């Protein structure tokens, strides 16, 4: 039987198994370190009688910092002489090598990190209950904010995966700096465009007070006096901006990351 050279589920699964079993050391060390840290902080805050929801603050750290950090090391094997032979000659397609990492460091990481943190929070609160009587609410991942956070991570982690494929050293820092620079550039261009389109409502770089009131209440039903049709133009712009932002964030960023990884893997040489 001739197997598909582009995509095969069994090969993808076998490839993911290799990645999971050969690179899990960092996950374990990072998880143990973070889990220990969370237990200590939880214990200290319980000792001082603080009963707020501290786990909501810890979860983004393990999700974003931990996830983006390990994502930026996902393709480290293509940059090292010894490992690159083994990795590039492994009989899996470039598409499988792209999707496999996206699944492991995306969905796989979210499931493991979330499950792990639920476990850490339960353990920490059991300890707190026994030792200090004060407890914090146990971490509940099934909240709307958590789902949004996870969605944000899933969309954004492909950029860090791409960074790991492109940068030989310090991929995490380099990717982070590039994101900052690109974000600043987009903000600057957007501001300039906004100023050009609405130049008559600016006083130098300052938006005049009337238009400022309109901008503040765009999402509300508050009765605001329109100034020369500005409100309707602003509402349209706001809708367009929202749509563009959604396409950019949920579409262009993850797809751009995927394409970036795929083409870098295609051109990688030993």
């Amino acid at each position, binding site marked *: 039987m001739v197997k598909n050279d582009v995509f095969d589920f069994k090969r993808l699964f*076998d490839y993911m198994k290799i990645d999971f*079993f050969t690179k899990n050391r960092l996950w374990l060390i990072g998880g143990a370190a973070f889990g220990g840290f969370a237990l200590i902080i939880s214990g200290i805050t319980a000792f001082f009688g603080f009963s707020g929801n501290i786990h909501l603050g810890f979860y983004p750290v393990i999700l974003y910092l931990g996830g983006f950090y390990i994502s930026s090391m996902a393709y480290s094997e293509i940059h090292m002489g010894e490992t690159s032979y083994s990795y590039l000659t*492994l*009989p899996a397609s470039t598409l499988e090598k792209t999707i496999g990492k996206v699944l492991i460091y995306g969905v796989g990481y979210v499931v493991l990190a979330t499950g792990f943190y639920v476990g850490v929070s339960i353990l920490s609160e059991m300890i707190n209950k026994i030792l200090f009587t004060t407890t914090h609410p146990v971490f509940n991942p099934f909240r709307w904010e958590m789902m949004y956070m996870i969605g944000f991570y899933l969309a954004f982690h492909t950029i860090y995966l791409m960074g790991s494929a492109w940068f030989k050293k310090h991929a995490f820092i380099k990717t982070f700096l590039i994101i900052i620079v690109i974000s600043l550039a987009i903000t600057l261009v957007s501001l300039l465009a906004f100023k050009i389109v609405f130049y008559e409502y600016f006083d130098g770089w300052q938006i005049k007070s009337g238009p400022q009131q309109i901008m503040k209440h765009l999402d509300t039903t508050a009765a605001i006096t329109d100034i020369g049709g500005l409100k309707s133009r602003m509402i349209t712009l706001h809708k367009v901006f929202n749509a563009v932002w959604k396409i950019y964030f949920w579409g262009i960023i993850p797809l751009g990351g995927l394409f970036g990884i795929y083409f870098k893997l295609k051109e990688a*040489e030993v």
Partner: protein
Amino acid sequence: MITVKKMNFGYGKKRQLFSDLDMHLEGGNIYGLLGKNGAGKTTFLKIISGLRYPSNGVVNVLGVNPAERKPSFYNKLCFIPENLYVPPISASLYLSLYSPFYPDFNSKKFEKYSKDFELDLEAGKLNEMSHGQKKKFLLAFGMATQASVLILDEPTNGLDIPSKSVFRRLVAGLADEKRVIIISTHQVRDVENLIDPIVVLENGKIIFNQSVESLLSKVSFTHTKKLPEGINEIYHEKVMGGYMVCAEGSGLFNDTDLDFEFLFNTIVNNKEKIQKIFGGNSNGKK
């Protein structure tokens, strides 16, 4: 099985390595790829494995362009590089993770090769093994994949003396019409009586590509106390107890052993003479 036509490759614009390289490697042979440092041996191996892209020309291995990096190509190719990598896992886990990628992987053969190499597969993680043990493990695995193209870069580096002999025996047993084996090495004495034909690369060019039979049909070698007279000498070297001599003509001496190191020196130091003796065939062109 492997055809390279008018292939060009360089490291940057100023360091052209291969210019219009032509080569054809047939199944059933164990090619010995020899050359000085920087001659292009490892780069050539990388190109035919799809790990480096030539700037132009044709590279065809098992009927496909290796640069496409197809899984169906890689499950018939095994490349064991000089610098080894083994993941930090046990031998049994390695087998269960990697063998599914090779449809012809034969576990019984793997067990046999491991036994022949006296490998202790229960001795902890692979990355904690010595260099020689890692090499033997990867050789056993690579041979058990039953790949049609087996590429070995400096395979005897790090192997102890008994293992080198086991290596020669096992590799010799792999040679068949459906398989091409390429061994690149500087340790030519380790692969004597194993490699045939011999391919010598120098500065990105093939300066010699002959079978041992073809070689001995045109030149003779001897180890003698005094330099012989009345022969058409190509090259000689002073060695312990006399001289090593290479002369034009078949069956001039009674010696039967071919010293590959001396042969290599003869070729690289007498390129023009060798070219003249073997004609167009010295670079493998027919």
